[in-house]
């Protein structure tokens, strides 16, 4: 079954302009993310995996600069190139269609606001209309149920909220928001938001969500803080979720809980997830497909099962072998990750590769489909393909 692509990254080039020189962080990468899948993006530190995830949200800031390429999102309104749209459009996509879970939950939360306030902010930004409508329908019920003074207050609030939907900047609203009884109409929306927030936290299996809503980030443990950050990312049921090493700072037992939670939420909400990590064990545990990066290039893309059974690219093979396993001697990759200021020519892995051919330092290997659904960028396989086509 061929799934539709949700996000297509095409020939993305990205440079960092530093004092030491131009760091060529991304060297023309292409990646498809299908609808409703979890794809793992693995690689060592500095290989460009975080930058790739930031580019999908057009969040690269100076000294980084995107030199070329497209990031196309298949949204409800059709295809949009995220790197080439108006800022106002982008703000609508961020958080609603594509949202992000950051690595360090403590750093992603604002220490001076409560958890509830921070999640509410996302609600207000993207789903204000829905919230107001929910509040209105609630008020309509109240008008029917109550009598006397309460009913008249509810009626006033209802009128004001309808006014908000029509024209939030009208003089009438500005005037009423100063009056003690009338300005209560704003609390109606707040109450609805809070209820939604609690629901969301409950979805993330946070114990006692009514209490947690009013807590400050420092009162939470690492695992709870990460759950809150995930909750913020999920407020609008995004179609695409980017998780940038969400469990790296957590302990193994908590990590396992979060991994299962992410997998479960994906099944429930049907979002696609781009899971950035350096841990192949986590990939095996969560992901359906995997993309391996090395020094700013994607060297291999495959389904998880065939990848772990038979990795194709020499770097991927070495990476799998360097995981310590009992009873096996681990094989370390000779050499170190090259500097991206003056990266090796041709295939960037050639100076550490044990199969390096003569052509490797000269020609950059393209990402080809060596087997069905198994893409690899290595001359060993390009040559094989060429022989095959010659024979036939």
């Amino acid at each position, binding site marked *: 079954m061929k799934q539709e692509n949700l996000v297509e990254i095409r020939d993305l080039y990205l440079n960092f302009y530093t004092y030491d020189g131009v760091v060529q962080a991304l060297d023309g990468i292409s990646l498809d993310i299908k609808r409703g899948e979890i794809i793992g993006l693995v690689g*060592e*530190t500095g290989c460009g995996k975080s930058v790739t995830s930031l580019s999908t949200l057009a969040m690269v800031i100076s000294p980084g600069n995107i030199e070329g390429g497209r990031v196309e999102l298949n949204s409800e309104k059709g295809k949009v190139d995220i790197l080439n749209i108006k800022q106002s459009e982008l703000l609508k996509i961020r958080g609603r269609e594509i949202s992000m879970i950051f690595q360090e939950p403590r750093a992603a939360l604002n220490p001076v606001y409560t958890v509830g306030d921070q999640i509410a902010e996302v609600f207000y930004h993207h789903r204000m209309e829905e919230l107001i409508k929910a509040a209105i329908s609630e008020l309509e019920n109240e008008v029917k149920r109550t009598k006397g003074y309460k009913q008249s207050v509810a009626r006033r609030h209802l009128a004001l909220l309808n006014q908000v939907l029509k024209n939030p900047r009208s003089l009438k609203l500005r005037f009423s928001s100063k009056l003690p009884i009338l300005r209560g109409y704003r609390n109606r929306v707040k109450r609805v938001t809070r209820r939604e927030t609690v629901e969301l936290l409950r979805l993330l299996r946070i114990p006692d969500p009514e209490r947690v809503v009013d807590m400050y980030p420092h009162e939470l*443990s*690492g*695992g*709870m803080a990460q759950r809150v950050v995930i909750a913020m990312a999920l407020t609008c049921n995004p179609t695409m979720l980017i998780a940038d090493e969400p469990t790296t700072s957590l*302990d*193994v*037992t*908590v*990590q*396992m*809980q979060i*991994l*299962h939670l992410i997998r479960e939420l994906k099944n429930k909400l049907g979002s696609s997830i781009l899971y950035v990590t*350096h*841990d*192949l*064990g*986590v*990939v*095996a*545990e969560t992901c359906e497909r995997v993309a391996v990066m090395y020094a700013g290039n994607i060297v291999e893309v495959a389904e*998880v*099962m065939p990848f*772990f059974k038979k990795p194709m690219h020499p770097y991927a093979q*070495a*990476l*799998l072998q*360097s*995981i*310590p*396993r*009992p009873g096996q001697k*681990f*094989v*370390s*990759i000779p050499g*170190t*990750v090259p500097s991206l200021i003056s990266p090796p020519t041709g295939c960037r892995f050639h100076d550490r590769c044990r199969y390096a051919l003569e052509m490797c330092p000269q020609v950059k290997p393209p990402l080809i489909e060596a087997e069905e659904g198994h893409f690899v960028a290595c001359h060993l396989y390009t040559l094989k393909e060429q022989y095959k086509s010659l024979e036939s």
Partner: protein
Amino acid sequence: MDTLIEVENLKKYFPILGGVLRKKIAEVKAVDGVSFKIERGETFGVVGESGCGKTTLGKTILRLLKPNGGKIFFNAPNDELLEITKAEEDIKSLNQKRSAASPARVTRLLKRYGMKYLSKEEADKLKGVPDAQLTTYLREKIPDYKKYDLTRLPSARLRRIRRHLQIVYQDPTTSLDPRMLIRNIVAEPLIAQGLAGGRKVHEMTLEALQQVGLSEKHLFRYPHEFSGGQRQRIAVARAIITHPKFIMLDEPTSAVDVSVRAQLLDLFQTLQRNLDLTYMFVSHDLSVVEVVSRRVAVMYLGKIVELSQTEELYKEPLHPYAHALFASIPIPDPTRRRERPPISGEVPSPVNPPSGCRFHPRCPLAMEICRREEPPLLDVKGGRDPRSGHFVACFAVNRPSG
């Protein structure tokens, strides 16, 4: 094999100060009654989640922290021999100056060691002999190794022992001074300990660097010029330059990438073979510990819950916490995916640990007794040799007889 380090009922509490007068209002029981032995030449792994006290345990053994209770015995080369070597050197330089041997030194050395190691007659006999003969005589009498109780050693003598106890910290970017040259960083322990001077410092620095796979060209560089793996190598060179007996490795591989990690683990094993080192390997990364350690202790909230030979522990962890911990390691094999997380909840605060067995609120096997009493660490195999024992602190495993 003999015992290098023996820890008995070690305790380390950190006070929490509060109120206007900064009085102690509570204690964080980071290490609470831990006992074990480390054999010479082995790698002793300590695993546990963050906040379980594994790093505190290591630092307390090295006496970087003052314990609140318990004993740490360290079987070290006798530091009195060092003093005699110094005396010998002094005598040599005196003889070169052609001055007579000083009688004061004889009396001093005799006073200090004569009473301890010689009988009264022997000491009397030695009163007239020249210094050079006296030192050789004493050297024969004084044993090479001695068991020190690090918790009671006076600080001046502790300083002399410290050269045998070294540490490699987690993050080399913060443990290396950015404003010092590699040469000075690596040589600093030698100078601080007064072990060498002049040309010898340079030679020993170079030797240590070569042992960790660096070379002469790296001597005059600064830490920022190195990659993460190389920086950790520098930190290791700094630790081995004093020829220590025991090195505590505090999560030495958690700040580096997978490929570099394998290289570092290789280095640790080579050094252990060549230099006859004993390691205590503290890490939260269970797979790394499994590869390097002979025995492993699992810690939970300041206590050891299970201690055993590595293969036994990893094959069949008996304590429910150890079981959950090992089941939580992500395995790089998608065919072995798990359906549900093996354990729920998080580690409680060590300020107010649960009563009885500290794991009971999260334990699937919790019984009535777990709430009331603390389970002792007992050998389930009941073998004669405690070194190959499998110790577990759990009532469900160590059922009271019958």
